[in-house]
């Protein structure tokens, strides 16, 4: 009999397809009579288009159309209501207003991609330019407004008798105050944004990478002025999301509207350069953290303020203290505040650990500074300040084993015996140091998720839900949880995802895909087993015809009772049914009265060259408390990938915004640096595998039929990223005695002090 695959190493169901190139990504799909589009983008950041001359492009070989602002022939419409949050607030190519440098101002459609690209270079645009607003330091600051989860981004909790956070800090024995800066960062998924739009009457099929298929398609329908059911979005394979494929950017509706106007399928693939301005970025920001504590390091006051961007077209509301400083440590006095500045720059979007990665860099660096100031070991300091109730709300956690992360991580890494004095370990040219930091990320339950389980007469099952697999292994997770719930081998389950014709699936955002999907798969499995039993007692040819449902027992794919045993496939064959299916109830809201987070602890060692100042990460250990692990192999990969993201955050990634032009200086992967293999050491990842009893704990009725081994999962897509940059920065301090608060920590910030 099969053992459950939950928590074990499972190869990806699509691994072979991907490594052999057989998996078809959005840009790989073909269509008869396909035309190809290429965008022309603005070279000013703010102002108006005074003229666009398409003549040379139109005369270029193979060109079918040039759609140009201010009034292209494309039919595009406002998006309103809830879907408005899933797209930009202007109609592309429908006005003369330039809102950011790199905005689409024209689109050429031709017979081949090369012809479209060459002709696009011939479109001449003139502008009436105005000075753009580009500086978060100089532009007026306004309150950021609610956080992404609806909580206030500004909060002050004071102990009785304390007049202000400043007073609480002033009354503390030890005060640490530090200001942090980081530049623009980009998602840079490996797959370019690519769209294929194919119309059939008033129905359109869109192939595009999307992290939240349902709302994406809804926004698309409104943008095109058609009914929601007229849009089918297929997002089968996606080469990296990281937040850049959450919303509907201008590219997809432009391609779809062109296909409609032209009466031919249209494919649009953005260039890497265009992806830097047309598909979002992480806001640059300034943060100030102030910590007040006793001489033993017990916190008395925590204050965390930030200023980030608010681009005019679409903005992610950056609230870096949310889920970091308002959640991590016990403190009688807490103050968090997020401000933004309205800027004429490309739209911003959530990027992996959207608030938490920058927020934790600031908080966890400041905590390290507090450890230095008090002489308390960094691990001890954090254990000493661990919160047992959520500081901002006072609620308990559904599950929290952070103390175990610290202890196990310290043991595996060999933290004991570390010299707290900087610059004490030298090996030849290299200064060595170690650092640690905490990881925290909220677990958002997603309402409305539905899964469908189909049992087929060949003893296989199909599990369907319109979630999206960004390369993380969601499809495999769906197969494993389906197999577990049905008690059959994973190989006998076919996952079906990434298609809006399927039941509404979990958004692949915010580390929530797994824990939003698994309970619904379990519920659908229960429902289909009940349906199987109902058929068994009602179908004419069934050996159980006329029996009571209570006489039947389903176990590992087999129905038993009254002396008969039949697999579900055999029963279906016997009664002449090709298959049966049932859906789950729509996923609900989380159980009230709890807060939900995943946790972790990072430990790392770096070396810094004493001559030239390069920082290289030499060792990394991460222990993560992420609830029940569904697929150990994919989970480890994702945590390792998260840590690599943190290495980029700490040491490499930044784009400079030119303040006078509003142009982002880097637009290639040669200039915008992400880690390469040589920058990544062996990363030791451990998962505690403690099921969350509340967030996705055992379902209510304790049914004997359905395996629930996959329940108790929590997300882990972002926890590897949160805090890892701080661990690296803290190790750099330990190695060199130099505290760098502006990431990335590049050698130019170190060499003058080495």
């Amino acid at each position: 009999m099969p053992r459950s695959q939950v928590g074990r190493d499972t190869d990806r169901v699509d691994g072979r397809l991907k490594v052999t190139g057989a998996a078809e990504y959005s840009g790989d799909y073909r269509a008869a009579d396909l035309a190809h589009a290429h965008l022309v983008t603005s070279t000013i950041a703010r102002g108006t288009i005074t003229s666009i001359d398409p003549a040379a492009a139109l005369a270029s070989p193979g060109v079918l159309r040039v759609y140009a602002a201010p009034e292209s022939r494309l039919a595009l419409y406002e998006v309103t209501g809830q879907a408005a949050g899933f797209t930009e607030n202007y109609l592309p190519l429908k006005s003369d207003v330039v809102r950011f440098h790199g905005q689409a101002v024209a689109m050429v459609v031709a017979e081949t991609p090369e012809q479209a690209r060459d002709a696009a270079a011939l479109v001449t645009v003139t502008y009436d330019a105005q000075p753009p607003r580009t500086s978060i330091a100089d532009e007026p600051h306004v309150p950021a407004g609610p956080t992404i989860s609806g909580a206030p981004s500004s909060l002050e909790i004071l102990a009785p008798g304390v007049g202000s956070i400043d007073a609480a800090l002033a009354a503390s024995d030890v005060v640490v105050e530090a200001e942090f800066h980081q530049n623009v960062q980009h998602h840079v998924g490996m797959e370019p944004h690519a769209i294929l739009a194919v119309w059939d009457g008033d129905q359109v099929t869109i192939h595009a990478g999307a992290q939240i298929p349902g709302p994406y398609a809804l926004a698309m329908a409104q943008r095109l002025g058609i009914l929601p059911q007229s849009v089918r979005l297929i997002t089968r394979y996606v080469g990296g999301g990281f937040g850049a494929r959450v919303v509907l950017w201008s590219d997809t509706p432009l391609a779809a509207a062109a296909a409609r106007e032209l009466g031919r399928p249209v494919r649009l693939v953005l260039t890497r350069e265009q992806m830097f301005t047309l598909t979002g970025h992480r806001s640059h920001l300034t943060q100030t953290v102030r910590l007040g504590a006793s001489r033993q390091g017990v916190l008395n006051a925590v204050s965390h303020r930030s200023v980030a961007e608010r681009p005019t077209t679409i903005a992610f509301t950056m609230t870096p203290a949310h889920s970091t400083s308002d959640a991590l440590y016990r403190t009688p006095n807490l103050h968090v505040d997020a401000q933004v500045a309205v800027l004429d720059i490309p739209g911003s979007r959530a990027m992996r650990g959207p608030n938490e990665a920058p927020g934790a860099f600031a908080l966890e660096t400041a905590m390290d500074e507090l450890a230095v100031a008090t002489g308390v070991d960094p691990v001890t300091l954090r254990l000493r300040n661990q919160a047992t109730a959520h500081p901002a709300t006072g609620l308990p956690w559904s599950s929290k084993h952070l103390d175990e992360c610290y202890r196990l991580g310290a043991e595996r890494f060999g933290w004991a015996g570390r010299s707290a004095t900087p610059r004490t370990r030298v090996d030849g040219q290299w200064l060595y140091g170690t650092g640690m930091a905490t990881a925290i990320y909220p677990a958002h339950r997603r309402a409305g998720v539905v899964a469908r389980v189909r049992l087929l007469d060949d003893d296989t099952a199909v599990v369907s839900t319109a979630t999206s697999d960004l390369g993380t292994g969601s499809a495999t997770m769906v197969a494993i949880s389906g197999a577990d719930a049905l008690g059959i081998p994973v190989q006998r389950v076919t996952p079906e995802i990434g298609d809006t014709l399927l039941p509404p699936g979990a958004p692949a955002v915010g580390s929530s895909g797994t824990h939003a999907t698994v309970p619904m798969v379990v519920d659908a499995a229960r429902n289909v087993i009940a349906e199987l039993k109902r058929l068994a007692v009602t179908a004419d040819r069934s050996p159980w015809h006329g029996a009571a449902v209570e006489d039947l027992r389903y176990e590992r794919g087999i129905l038993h009772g009254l002396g008969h045993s039949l697999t579900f496939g055999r029963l279906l064959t016997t009664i002449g049914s090709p298959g049966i299916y049932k859906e789950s109830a729509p996923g609900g809201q989380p159980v009230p009265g709890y807060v939900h987070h995943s946790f972790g602890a990072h430990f790392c060692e770096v070396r810094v060259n004493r001559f030239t100042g390069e920082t290289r990460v030499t060792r990394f250990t991460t222990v993560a408390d992420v609830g029940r692990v569904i697929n150990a192999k994919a989970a480890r990969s994702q945590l390792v990938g998260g840590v690599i993201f943190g290495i980029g955050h700490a040491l490499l990634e930044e784009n400079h915004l030119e303040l006078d032009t509003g142009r982002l200086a880097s637009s290639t992967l040669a200039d915008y640096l992400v880690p390469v293999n040589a920058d990544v050491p062996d990363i030791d990842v451990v998962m505690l595998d403690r099921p969350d009893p509340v967030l996705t704990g055992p379902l209510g009725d304790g049914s004997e039929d359905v395996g629930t081994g996959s329940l108790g999962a929590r997300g882990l897509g972002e926890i590897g990223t949160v805090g890892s940059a701080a661990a690296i920065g803290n190790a750099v301090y330990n190695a060199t005695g130099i505290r760098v608060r502006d990431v990335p920590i590049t050698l130019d910030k170190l060499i003058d002090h080495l």
Partner: protein
Amino acid sequence: MRPYTYAQARSVREALRGAGPDTAFLAGGTTLVDLMKLEVVTPERVVDINRLPLDGVTLDHKGLHIGALERMSDVAAHPAVRQHYPMIAQALELSASAQLRNMASIGGNLLQRTRCGYFRDVTTPCNKREPGSGCSALDGINRGHAVLGTSDACIATHPSDLAVPLVALSTTVHLASPRGTRSVPLDTFYTLPGSTPDVENVLRPDELITGITVPRSPWAARSLYLKVRDRQSYEFALTSAAVALELQGRTITNARIAAGGVGTRPWRLTAVERALTGRPATPATFEAAVTHAADGAQPREHNAFKPALLRRTLVRALTELQESR
């Protein structure tokens, strides 16, 4: 990409026939095709020279001869290069990526264009790409830009790693044109930007690099190329140093030093060579010798760290070389 005609040449003479300012020679294509896609270069004629007999790596009493069409990876792997000119092999292996090194030729490497982001973006002013349009890098993002050999018209960094040890070793470049052949020291092959940054070398429009000769020297075997950059692989140098020392006992009898990542061309440091010569190979000597290495540097807003980093890079390279004996 602009339309162009493509032809394959089977001899140097055939390749040069009709060559002019609108002709581009295609070898590995790793720079040319990239810049043609961006429309930074827009040749009317592309002449594929990959079938020309410009290959071969040989070592004789005069030195190391490398054909212009030898691939970077093949030269880096060549035993004679590794044994007698280690810093050439090192500079090649620290360049680009394995895939690019498999394609890119030695002649093309010497002619590769700057990585300046403004040069590559045809929507921004750039005197090198479009003479007279202005230099966006002067007051733009210039962290990677040059501090030596710059002008008010251009501060673009010379991108080649290979050229740095070649300049240090007094390499000669062999050129062919319809008028015959000539040989030019690599050091003077490259020109400073001055007021004409679009001119980068003395190569004439109808001239082709056929090969290079690196002189035989007693110091080349004890040499090292050090490349300093933000990430460990696949990035251009912030600074680099090619250092070669000849020692008698502990005394430096000959030194060859050049730097990359800091100049508008590969930057030979003869003053540093002189300051090392005749002195003991000690940290104090190294420190003292590099004091004036960046004299005359003209840093801008984001690359002010480069003079100090250059001095540190040189000391580190000399120290590593000394310790590696």
